[in-house]
Structure formats: C-alpha cells, structure tokens
C-alpha cells in the first residue's frame, strides 16, 4: 500500500508540475533576453540617456518623439525604408510565384533545382552584400560591364537614390525569392490536378490557369509570405551598411540616400550612443512595421477567384 501511495504521489507531482519544468528554460531565457529588452525599449525611449554617462539619464516624457518627428534625417530614413519595402517585397513575391510554378512542373533533377533556388538564402548577408557591392562597382563592376554590352553608360550605383535602392533591392530579392518559392511550391503541389485538366478542357491557357487557379488558391501562403517579407524588409540594416562600407557607413551613403530606419537607429545608438533617441526610433519603426504589414495583409487578402 505504502509503495503504491508513494508512486501515486510521484505520479501526481510528475503530471502536474514537471511540464512547467520542461517549458521553463524557454520562458526564462526569452523573458530575460528577449521580452524584457523589448518592453524596456519603451521606457528608455522616454529618457535622455547616453551610454557614456548612464547616471545622467533623465526622464523627459515624449521629448525624443517630438525631436524625432521634426528630424529630417529620420523622415529621410523612413522614406527610404518604405521605398525599399516596396522595391523588395513586391518583386520578391512575384518572382517567387514564377519560380514556384516552374518547379511545380514535372522536372528531372528537381532536388538540384530546389537546392539551387534556396542557396542564396543560406549564404550570409554580410558576405553577400560585400560581394554585391563589388558586382555593382562603378568602374570595374560586372553589372556595369554587362549593361555596357547593351550600350548603357557607367552607373554609379551608390551615388543616386533610385540606383542605390534598386541595387539593394536586387540583393534582398536575390536572397529571399527562392525561400518564398519553396513555400509556394509546397502548397501548389496540394492543388488537385483535376482543376487544371478541367480548365484545359475549357480552353484556358497556362497564363490564365496560373492567375485564375494557382494564385487564388495560394492566397493564405501569399498573405503569410507578404507579412514575413514585410517584417524583414522594414528593418534592412546589413545591406545598406555594407553596400558602401567605410568611415561613413552608418549614414547610408554620403547624402543618406539609402539610410534605412534600422540603420539610423544604429547610427544614433551605436555611433553617437544616444540610447534614448535610438530607442524612440525603434518604437516608431515597430509601429510602422505593424501598419505596413497590415497594409500588406489587406492587399493580399483581396486576391480572389474570378
């Protein structure tokens, strides 16, 4: 009897409390190093605070935000962020859809092609940006040389607003299209082929089938990918930082022509050590990301079967 009692007690303890022990490491570490800093950002953003002299931190209410809204560099960075968001997210989704429908055919050596499209995604963003910065070089860059074959002049990619945004967008699209393509492909494979057969009998060509059957049925994945891509593309940092490396890298070009909001956060936080001001940028950027992701959600939600 006593033995059973002991076992039952142990069993009860096991079923009631042990599960908390199993999930505790996650919540402890995430709570301290993930959630707490995130929430504390809001508190720091209400302070005048500098790394050099932490004791001199003062509570200033919304002074950082007021300063931010009057800061032309901040608006410039937000404008660049939105421009890059549009230039990266839309082509990325469209290209991914195109690659996915290529991969969805009956293809020999399909593993090779699937691995091929995901290769850009596994390479490091730092290495790849450094490589692309050379490919986009003004005098000896391969891209200018290729364009030159078609009679184009030498483009100073880093110098202009539009050209630098295009160059950075190319890097991001290159890196992420294959990833989204594989997500789309997984769902495409679940579409019954009878749908396509019926459409073919009705005389619909490949293009019509793609836009009227495939894309509407992929709506949930397109929404998902748009949101994932938005949260990533709204905080581009490595690309603008390493596109023009050097002493003034944090400004994103000599005229801040490709400084993103995340890069401005970095400049304020870790080259000027204005922690309060930098935290205010983080908060505004987070809000902007939610708004833009919501926008992306409403646009992609409207995809319908015709």
């Amino acid at each position, binding site marked *: 009897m006593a033995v059973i009692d002991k076992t039952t007690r142990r069993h009860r303890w*096991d*079923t009631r409390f*042990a*599960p908390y022990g*199993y*999930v505790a*490491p*996650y919540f402890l*570490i995430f709570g301290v*190093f993930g959630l*707490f*800093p*995130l*929430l504390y950002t809001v508190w*720091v953003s209400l302070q005048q605070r500098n790394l050099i002299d*932490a004791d001199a931190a003062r509570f200033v209410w919304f002074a950082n935000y007021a300063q931010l809204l009057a800061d032309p560099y901040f608006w410039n960075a937000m404008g660049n962020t939105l421009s890059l968001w549009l230039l990266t997210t839309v082509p990325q989704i469209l290209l991914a859809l195109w*690659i996915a429908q*290529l*991969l969805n*055919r*009956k*293809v020999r050596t399909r*593993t090779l*092609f699937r*691995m091929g*499209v*995901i*290769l850009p995604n*596994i*390479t*490091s*963003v*730092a290495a*790849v940006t*450094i*490589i692309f910065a*050379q*490919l986009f070089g003004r005098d*000896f860059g*391969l891209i200018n040389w290729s364009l030159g074959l078609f009679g184009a002049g030498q483009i100073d990619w880093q110098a202009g607003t539009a050209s630098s945004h295009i160059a950075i967008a190319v890097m991001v699209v290159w890196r992420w299209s*294959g*990833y989204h393509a*594989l*997500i789309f492909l*997984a769902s495409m494979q679940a579409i019954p*082929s009878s749908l396509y*057969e019926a459409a*073919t009998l009705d005389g619909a060509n*490949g293009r019509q089938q793609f836009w009227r059957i495939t894309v509407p049925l992929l709506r949930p994945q397109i929404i998902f990918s748009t949101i994932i891509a938005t949260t990533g593309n709204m905080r581009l940092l*490595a690309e603008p930082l*390493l596109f023009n*490396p050097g*002493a003034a890298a944090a400004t994103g070009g000599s005229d801040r022509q490709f400084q993103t909001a995340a890069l401005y956060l970095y400049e304020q*936080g*870790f080259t000027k050590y204005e*922690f309060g001001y930098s935290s205010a940028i*983080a*908060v505004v*950027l987070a809000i902007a*990301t939610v708004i833009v992701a919501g926008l992306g959600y409403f646009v992609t939600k409207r995809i319908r079967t015709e």
Partner: protein
Amino acid sequence: MTAVLERPAPVRPTGPTARARRLARRVAGPWTYAALVAVLAGSAFPVYWSFVVSSQTPDAIDTVPPVLVPGGNLFANIARVFDTTDFWLALMNSMVVSGTVTLSVVLFSTLAGFAFAKLKFRGRNLLLLLIIGTQAIPTELGIIPLYMMMAEFGWAGEIHAVIVPGLVTAFGVFFMRQYFERAIPDELLEAGRMDGCHSLRLFWHIALPAARPAAAVLGLFTFMQAWNDFFWPLVVLTPENPTVQTALSTLASGYTTDYTLVLTAATIGTVPVLAVFLLFGRQIVGGIMSGAVKG
C-alpha cells in the same frame, strides 16, 4: 514513366491538343528547363564569382572585361587573409557561438515542444499562444536595452553576449511542438505511463528518438542562422574579438582597400554553411516546404 504507360494509348499527339495535354500534365518543356537553369545560374553566380576573385591575383578584380574563371592564386590569398587579420579567432568564435546555440536550441525546443504537444498542464494553451505571438515580434528592436544589460553584466565584447540571447527561439519550440503533435501517437505515451514511466523517461526513450528527423532540420536551420547572424554581434562585439560576419564587416570597412582579400575572406566565411548545405540540402529544402519558417 509508369504513370504515362498506364494511360490509354494516345492518338498521335498533334498541334494544340498535344500542347493542351502537356499543360494539364504539367510536364516541363524546354522553356521551363531554360528558365530553371537561368534561375540556378543567377542563384549561384555571386558566390561563384567571389570564389573566382579569391583564386585570382589581386589586380584581377580591376580588369575589363571582368574575370569569370578561377585562377591559381587561391591559397596565396587565403594565406594573406590569415596574415592580415586574426581570421582564425573569428572562425573559432563563430564555431563556438553556432555550435552552442544549435545544441541549446535543439535541446530546449525539443523539451518544451514535447511538453506542449503531449503533456497536459494548466495554462498550456495560453503559454503556447504567447510563444506564437512572440515569434512575430522582431526582437532586434530591443537591441538598446539588451546592450545596456550586457554592458551592466560586463559581457560587452565577449562572445557569451552573443550566445546567451540565442539559446532559445520561439520558432524552435513551435516547430518541435508541431512535429510531436503528428509524430507520436498518444496511445504510445499512455502505455508508457501505465508502466510507471516518469515523463522525463517518456521524453528520453520515446519522444527524443522519434524527434530525430525534426531535431536535425531545426539544428541545420539554427546553425546556419547563428553563423550568419550580423546585427547583434556587430553591436556587442569589438573588432578585436569578432565573429566571421563582424570580421568581414571590419575588413570591408576600409581596413584594407584590397578587395580580393575581402572577397577571399567572404568566401572562407561562406564555406562552413555551404558545406552544411551541400551535405543536407535535401533536408533543408524539405524543412522549408513542410513549414519551417525563419525564426
């Protein structure tokens, strides 16, 4: 091939009908292959070109037309990278960071994923919802307070400042939970319980062996992500104690204008993830297609 043979013998495929049939069966035509090869070439080109430059003499990068085939100077350039910077230290640091983070994420995610999928406890759904919710939050936005904490602990500049925040991921827990949900029948665990198994033993003897394929995929993703991580290491580490990515950043930022050297370093830094990719590419593709999302 068998699928084709089983079909009723087709009347001679001619003109538009044949095309329509091919369309419905979705067999790739020559244009599809051409497009796929172009995509493949575009994907591989930047890394290939970086390798080409790494194997050329330093002046080859400034030539017109640009170099496109490898030369014989690879080892000389590699030697120059290690002479110019302490790239060994960077590689070692990246290995330690990625290795520790991978082991820890796989262990804690498996444990928590098991509890969420197969054990009943009060507040389970709420806690799971919390995990799913936090997955959507870009934790980089808390980078200023995180840095302040590290400075307070005296960890700034040390690699454990990079390791510790990466020890767990919401994505990992959720991913393993989804896997356990499908992979282990409840009856199996019931049976184990009847035999008086403690839940930790159930985990160790039933869940963990069953979780190996998913744990491997999670490990691959985590390793590559940790290896490639840039923003946080850049902020918290110093050029004297870098990871591969921050060492690349320092090298490219005017430490030298010798871009052959920089690209050689970029090539070396890409080799470990490339090796993982070539060995386990099939699993990585499978992981993404089964819903493994970046964390």
